[in-house]
């Protein structure tokens, strides 16, 4: 999809206007209204704009070395993007680390393009740097739409990451004693009217893992999984998780491997 920049802006403005309506609908507590709206948007998920943006960024020569990311190895060989997201996180021999899509994209920016990625890691959400990273993750995830999740755990470091992620999931702390499990550890629970997936189950993990990055109608923003996790940690009253850190990769490994066999539906759309 190649959206004319002006058409893209118009669509975004339209979506922003409509999403204000959604906020009102929600305060009227008509969750059905949101569902209908979500249905209507399925034909034209604004996430496609970010996907297109990400594709452009992926293919454009950039950084001090002025090369594109097209030869980036996302785990299925240099240059293979199709299906890669569905197999992540995974172990990479060159970094000797388990990486998710987002931390791997950082690696490629550093090694292929010579970019100083610290600036990207430190930048706040909604900064131009993070916008780029989210668009790239959205593009990469879109290339796995319809592919079955198959996070392997054959490498000992992948296995260790899964166990660390599980432990993090149940780790309580902060003034509210919250862990991920407080909000995502029971079947059919909600916070206010928001349904919470029961993440330790295959169905719950699949609901969460296969639908992000997602366009959030309520905020008019495109969020990657890293951003989703950062906002849940915020609600948990925890400090801010560092972008691409092992904490975030471990939780992703736990979710992805628990979701194994489900079908990627990315980029997603959320309330």
């Amino acid at each position: 999809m190649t959206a004319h920049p002006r058409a893209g802006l118009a669509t975004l403005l339209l979506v922003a206007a409509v999403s204000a309506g959604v906020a009102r609908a929600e305060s009227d507590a008509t969750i059905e209204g949101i569902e209908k709206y979500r249905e209507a948007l399925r034909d034209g998920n604004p996430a496609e704009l970010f996907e297109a943006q990400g594709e452009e960024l992926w293919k454009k020569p950039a950084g001090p070395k002025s090369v594109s990311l097209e030869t980036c190895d996302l785990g299925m060989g240099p240059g293979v993007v199709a299906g890669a997201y569905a197999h992540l996180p995974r172990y990479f021999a060159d970094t000797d680390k388990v990486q998710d899509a987002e931390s791997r994209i950082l690696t490629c920016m550093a090694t292929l393009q010579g970019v100083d990625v610290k600036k990207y890691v430190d930048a706040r959400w909604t900064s131009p740097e993070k916008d780029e990273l989210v668009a790239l993750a959205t593009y990469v995830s879109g290339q796995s739409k319809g592919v079955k999740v198959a996070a392997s755990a054959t490498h000992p470091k992948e296995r260790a990451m899964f166990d660390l992620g599980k432990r993090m999931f149940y780790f309580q702390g902060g003034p509210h004693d919250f862990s991920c499990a407080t909000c995502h550890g029971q079947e059919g629970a909600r916070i206010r009217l928001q349904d919470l997936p029961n993440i330790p189950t295959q169905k719950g993990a699949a609901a969460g893992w296969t639908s992000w990055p997602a366009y959030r109608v309520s905020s008019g923003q495109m969020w990657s999984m890293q951003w989703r996790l950062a906002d849940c940690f915020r609600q948990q009253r925890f400090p801010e998780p560092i972008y691409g850190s092992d904490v975030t990769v471990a939780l992703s490994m736990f979710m992805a491997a628990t979701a194994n066999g489900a079908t990627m539906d990315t980029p997603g759309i959320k309330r």
Partner: protein
Amino acid sequence: MTTNLRIAALSALLFAAPLPAFAAESAWGPGADDAAFEAMLKSGFREKGIVKLDRLKQDATQAFCSDPIKSNAKDAAKARAEIEAANLAAVKWPSDGKFLGDFKAGEKIAQSGRGLTSTDKADQVNGGNCYNCHQIDKAEISYGTIGPSLVGYGKLKGTSEEALKTTWARIWNSKSSNACSNMPRAGHMGILGEQQVKDLMALLLDPNSPVNK
């Protein structure tokens, strides 16, 4: 021949079965690989706004409750009872002996989920988050279901000394009656102050509160 067939059938079965994430459960909880976990915590977070890294330091209750399999095990009953006793002993009772405040103020506190996140300010008045998890006033239809419905709570419990005390202890420090309750320890952890807890008490127990109408 029959053996061969059986082997073929067996291996077909084995390969057709959906691959589990892992062959077997490995050790993962507290005590499994503490060094790796500590290193992950240390490298994984940064301070933001009012939220410092000390949020990651657990007290005894939090540490105990971070492994649901161990903390729910039969042989953990004694440890659970000890945690409940310690939390009950830490409950601060109303300084003037009055348990009930203003239910209208209580409703506002129950509605608010604000406070103590990295995007909140230090001088923010914290909310109780109650509607995030409980149905309370029937008129509010946007309520969560992590906790039980509290509609009619006061009608059910009355205002006996015992009802006042158990409800106060529950809100002030939920772990005083259930070691690993999902409910925050609002008073104990300084989320809410004494007057706010009194107002919530009135919301739940005052016969004139909409909760009991």
